[in-house]
């Protein structure tokens, strides 16, 4: 872990565990969020990302362990003065007008951004008098994200901020996040879109099964996960051991082997006299590498099925097709 000189830690989890009855959502998670960092939290649905954010913003308490926000318990309202949050669902009171919602939120902070300025920045100026129930999905989403920035927070938690937005709107929001970060703001962002984390985050934390699997810079995460995908046709591929192959799948006679060392793997295949044809070696995108990590990291076999189905979503498939370019 990189340790800058005495970083000002804005939020921190220390050995945080959270259970819901019998279900353990987070297991002994420790995480520091230093000032000025843009941290991307990745993981499949149900991995524990949202629970972690809910602990950090005081919505839930850890079953054991400790969570701090600006050095205080997040459940202390004073701690949340420097916090900006965007709700995961676009649940705004339908009868309130857009301007009224922003005013209510602004009223909680000592030095909020003036409402017209917020609305203008997020392209909502014309909708100020509209009731939120009458907004389109994308407009609601934009308003929800705008709310996170109203109080000039020092830390913003964005839980899947761009889910359901079209590409243009998503890029607008990325600009907003970059603008805030460039001005010294700290961001923790969860996303379904790896593209998003890849585009924005400096540090990537991969969570699955309630545990932190990988925590490092974008580059470190890339190198920590199997970086090469070897695809080949063969009637049978013997078990080559976890050290060499971190994950393997096959469909008919097409085998996909994930490895950190493609050269060694190919030499081994030749030495073992595996009758393969059509050998391909690819450098996957972070997206694919991440799926490989979560597929091997999750103990339950169901995980790899979930990972497999994620790969088939349009955006993921698109990224996969350009796997080689992405890493270059």
């Amino acid at each position, binding site marked *: 872990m990189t340790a800058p000189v005495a970083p000002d830690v804005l939020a921190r989890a220390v050995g945080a565990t959270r259970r819901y009855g019998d279900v353990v959502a987070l297991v002994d998670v420790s995480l520091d969020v230093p000032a000025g960092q843009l941290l991307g939290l990745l993981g499949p649905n149900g991995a524990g990302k949202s629970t972690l954010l809910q602990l950090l*913003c005081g919505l839930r308490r850890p079953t054991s362990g400790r969570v701090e926000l600006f050095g205080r318990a997040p459940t202390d309202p004073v701690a949340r003065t420097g916090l900006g949050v965007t709700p995961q669902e676009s649940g705004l009171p339908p009868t309130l007008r857009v301007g*009224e919602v922003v005013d209510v939120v602004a009223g909680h902070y000592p030095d909020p951004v003036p409402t017209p300025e917020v609305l203008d*920045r997020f392209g909502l100026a014309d909708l100020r008098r509209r009731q939120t129930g009458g907004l389109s999905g994308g407009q609601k989403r934009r308003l929800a994200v705008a709310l996170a920035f109203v109080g000039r927070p020092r830390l913003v938690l964005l839980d899947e901020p761009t889910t359901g937005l079209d590409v243009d709107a998503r890029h607008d929001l990325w600009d907003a996040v970059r603008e805030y970060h460039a001005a010294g703001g700290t961001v923790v962002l969860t996303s379904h879109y790896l593209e998003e984390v890849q585009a924005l985050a400096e540090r990537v934390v991969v969570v699955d099964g309630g545990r932190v699997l990988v925590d490092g810079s974008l580059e470190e995460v890339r190198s920590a996960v199997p970086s090469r995908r070897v695809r080949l046709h063969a009637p049978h591929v013997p078990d080559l051991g976890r050290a060499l192959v971190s994950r393997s799948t096959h469909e008919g006679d097409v085998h996909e082997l994930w490895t950190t060392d493609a050269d060694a793997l190919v030499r081994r295949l030749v030495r073992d006299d595996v009758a393969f044809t059509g050998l391909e070696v690819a450098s996957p995108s972070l997206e694919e590498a991440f799926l490989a990590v979560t597929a091997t990291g999750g103990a339950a076999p169901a995980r790899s099925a979930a990972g497999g189905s994620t790969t088939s979503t349009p955006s993921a498939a698109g990224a996969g097709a350009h796997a080689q370019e992405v890493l270059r």
Partner: protein
Amino acid sequence: MSTLHPTRPPAGRGSTEGRGVLRLSWLHTRSLFVETVRVPIAVVGTVVFPALTLLFFVVPQPFAQDPAQATAAAAQISLFAVVSVCLFTYGVGVAEDRALPYDSYLRTLPVGAAPRLAGRVLNGLGFALVALVPVVVLATLLTAATLPASRLLLTGGALALAALPMLGLGLAIGYGLPTKAALAVAQLLLLPLAFGGGLFLPPETFPSWLDALSTWLPTRAGRDLVVSAATGVDLPVTALPVLAGWVLLTAALAVLAYRRDEGRRFR
């Protein structure tokens, strides 16, 4: 300077202190009020229901022509209206709101329990008081009930006091239970509390065992207080201590339930 930037780390200014409790209470009261009145039918229901109860259950009765009995009956119906607002608006309404993502969002803002509770309380009591206006007017016009101006304020104050334990109970239900359970519990509590407290039939008609039991109910203490304020009959010595005990107990329950609340109990 760009629109989106963090405040500098607090330097002097004492800016880590949240906004004042009073200011935030006003903010939440106003926003809840606006939210509510934009759905007029919800307001109409709350406001008209007690007047209808009076029209159906008091006005046609023979005792409606006896000033003392009619006044007491109108007072009891007023308290019943307040009790049902407390159990349903606070109990079920809060439970419903808690299931909404907006409620979770509000809990991430730098605001504690007090201003949000104050907003709810002021709104509920405000609408309940509005609902009492037609009750007073109809009782005055259609029955022998009288409420001299000198007693109006006293009675209003007595109603507010009598409402306190029911308010605490409602909030405890709302913050402590999921919507469906809250609805069931509110319904289960409303009738026994209203009947046992003498809001439907005056306690004078109770058998002695029920009267003894009734003395310990918050609704009975509240009913005695309100009837005494409206008609001038003596206030039983038990009323105020019983009421105070229930206020403390239900307030503690409500605060406990609010603190334990984490929105919906699943992820």
